[in-house]
């Protein structure tokens, strides 16, 4: 069974939703605490949303140096899959596992609402269950979601096809306000060069249960469940 570590920092939220969504697709999901130095044989790591360490200094800036993140760095360097959701995306940027940074929303307000996004690529560890070009309606809830990066970094991300999710422009069939935060190139999610580390601002775990409406977010979890176990694991932890 695939081991999925959901990392909890002081101030994480949607951690139980994330755990439930990972369990729903048949994985052995468990929590890792920010002080843990081991991910206990995780095949996949998920950094959930929230306000780790109160978002003090900058979102993700302090979480980035927590003991568990040293283990996440090693996991990612070994080619392990890591998904950062919202605050998790901010932490991955601060940790330099993904390029760029997430700054205060252009409108200055905290934005909490559904948005329409387009799946730009489905050959990542977390989007293989979707079709390229597929449109999803996912909730966002963030104050610091404006993706910025140096011009040459943005060009590189586009040239290498590393934009995973993009906010869809408003149309008649999709009247939601586009780009809720002023992100460069309407970026809602990106990945590293190998597609194993993915950061997204929307919260797929909040729409992974049919009881809560169209389960548009479930695909992120069915995708990760298709990952290959990384190594034989002894003493598989249970939560």
């Amino acid at each position, binding site marked *: 069974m695939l081991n999925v570590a959901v990392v909890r920092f002081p101030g994480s939220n949607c951690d139980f939703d994330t755990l439930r969504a990972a369990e729903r697709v048949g994985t052995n999901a468990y929590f890792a605490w920010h002080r843990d130095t081991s991910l206990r044989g995780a095949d996949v790591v998920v950094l959930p949303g929230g306000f780790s360490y109160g978002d003090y200094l900058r979102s993700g800036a302090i979480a980035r*140096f927590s003991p568990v993140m040293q283990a996440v760095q090693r996991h990612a360097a070994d080619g392990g899959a890591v998904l950062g959701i919202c605050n998790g995306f901010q932490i991955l940027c601060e940790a330099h596992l993904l*390029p760029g940074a997430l700054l205060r929303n252009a409108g*200055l307000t905290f934005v909490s609402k559904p948005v329409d996004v387009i799946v730009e690529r489905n050959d990542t560890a977390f989007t293989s269950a979707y079709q390229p070009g597929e449109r999803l309606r996912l909730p966002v809830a963030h104050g610091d979601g404006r993706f910025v990066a140096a011009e040459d970094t943005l060009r590189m991300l586009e040239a290498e096809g590393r934009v995973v999710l993009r906010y869809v422009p408003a149309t008649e069939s999709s009247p939601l306000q586009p780009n809720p935060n002023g992100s460069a190139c309407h970026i809602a999610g990106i990945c590293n060069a190998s597609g194993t580390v993915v950061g997204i601002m929307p919260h797929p775990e909040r729409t992974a249960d049919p009881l809560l409406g169209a389960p548009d977010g479930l695909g992120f979890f069915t995708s990760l469940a298709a990952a290959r176990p990384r190594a034989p694991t002894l003493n598989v932890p249970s939560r």
Partner: protein
Amino acid sequence: MSFRVHVRVMPRGGLLDPQGQAVEHALTALGFAEAGGVRVGRAIELDVAAGSRPEAEARVRQMCDKLLANPVTEDYLLEVEEV
């Protein structure tokens, strides 16, 4: 020796600074039409024990590069004061 270090972290020029814009609008609304180019950053003060002023400054630069400022989006200025 002990030094008091004042660190000023500012959003990099050219990057949209919505906080600065909002403050500028508020100043204009309050009748301070002469105010412009408002940018909002962060000030951090800390005490540093070091053998010399350059050593204190070098250590705080490391702190800035590692944690206090984000090299992707922010610039910083240091002021070192012997105490």
